[in-house]
């Protein structure tokens, strides 16, 4: 039953090759979807181009369905999948900070790496700022330690919040994603008189 210990099964070199292959595919898809271009990334916030949003959410729902179908069929132990623990209020504040940074800078940390791969100067500066920000945070987090460790909820996922079966929540998330695609597409047509290119 997955997840498997790749290093034990394939050895260190074998597992690194697998990671390399997955990283290559990931980077290839991100770049070809426009995740390395800050103009396309920022355009989604103005409903000008929704390709990034659609790729992102499609990836999320496909991964979600693969994970939970694998779990349902006994191929994967979902309990062994690392789920980032929840610190509610620090998470909300962090999300707001990141959202503002995303709109202002045109990148999130991951997409700035994609842009650096194609030698985009704005991406390089964003990444540099990101590294400095990480260092500055590390040096100052002690001052906000109490808030930083507040409202801890452990491994907390949507079925826990809604009190619904995981499969039902997955269905609702798919409906939400599709409704969002349709709704945002409608807004895009209303504002700009056109949808995304095919």
């Amino acid at each position: 039953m997955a997840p498997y210990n790749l290093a034990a099964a394939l050895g260190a070199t074998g597992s690194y090759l697998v990671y390399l292959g997955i990283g290559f595919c990931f980077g290839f898809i991100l770049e070809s979807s426009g995740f390395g271009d800050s103009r396309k990334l920022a355009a989604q916030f103005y409903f000008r181009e929704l390709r990034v949003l659609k790729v992102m959410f499609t990836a999320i729902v496909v991964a979600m369905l693969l994970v939970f179908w694998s779990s349902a069929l006994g191929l994967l132990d979902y309990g062994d999948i690392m789920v980032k623990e929840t610190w509610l209020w620090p998470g909300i504040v962090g999300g707001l900070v990141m959202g503002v940074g995303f709109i202002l800078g045109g990148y999130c940390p991951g997409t700035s790496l994609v842009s650096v791969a194609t030698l985009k100067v704005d991406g390089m500066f964003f990444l540099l700022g990101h590294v400095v920000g990480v260092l500055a945070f590390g040096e100052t987090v002690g001052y906000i330690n109490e808030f930083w460790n507040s409202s801890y909820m452990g491994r907390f996922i949507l079925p826990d919040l809604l009190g619904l079966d995981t499969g039902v929540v997955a269905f609702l998330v798919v409906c939400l994603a599709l409704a969002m695609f349709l709704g945002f597409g409608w807004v895009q047509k209303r504002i700009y008189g056109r949808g995304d290119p095919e």
Partner: protein
Amino acid sequence: MKARINPRVLGAGFLLAASGALALYGQPDLEQKWAYMAPEYASRLEYREVYIDPAELLHLINDDYIDLIIYDVRNERDWNMFHLVDSERIDLKDLPSQRKRLRGLSELSVVVVVSNDEILATRAWKRLLALAKPNVYILEGGINHWLNVYGVMGDEHESHGTASLARPDGTLRHPFKLALGARHAASRPDEHRVAHREYTEKVKLLKKVKKAGGCD
């Protein structure tokens, strides 16, 4: 003219169908999950790798470096009659409530399940493994065996002796005079005063304990 299906609509339809089917199919409960895990873990039961001797449990109880949880899955009546100090009574059906706690255990944690014999404890072991894969073991022979080894004659009726382990039926086969719970001498015998008992160490910690004394 032949109508073309929009690939976006096709993709959306596929996602809806796959998620709708998942909602109907559901996620495996603990029994089903154990069935999926059995090929990998059942050999531990078959070769009795997880059944620990009472002496090993007594050693764990007295080891301050180990975070020990003892789940007693017997009924309330037997629990009231006798139980180990610091053990926690829990019904099998309530084990899922321990998921969060078990997932948060440190690498120096050991969980031991006890029942009167091994029947209920083995079922609990399977469920705990399906629930959170803790470092979990079963008391060999259960409370009946524990009392055979550490029981005190004065606590029990005259009929006290050694309960037969040959035909386990899940009952407490030591007749107590009073329901004293954890106030029996056998609830936490002094490891240094009981007769020495040889056993094969089966408990493996997920992390090596660094024991230091004095000024270290």
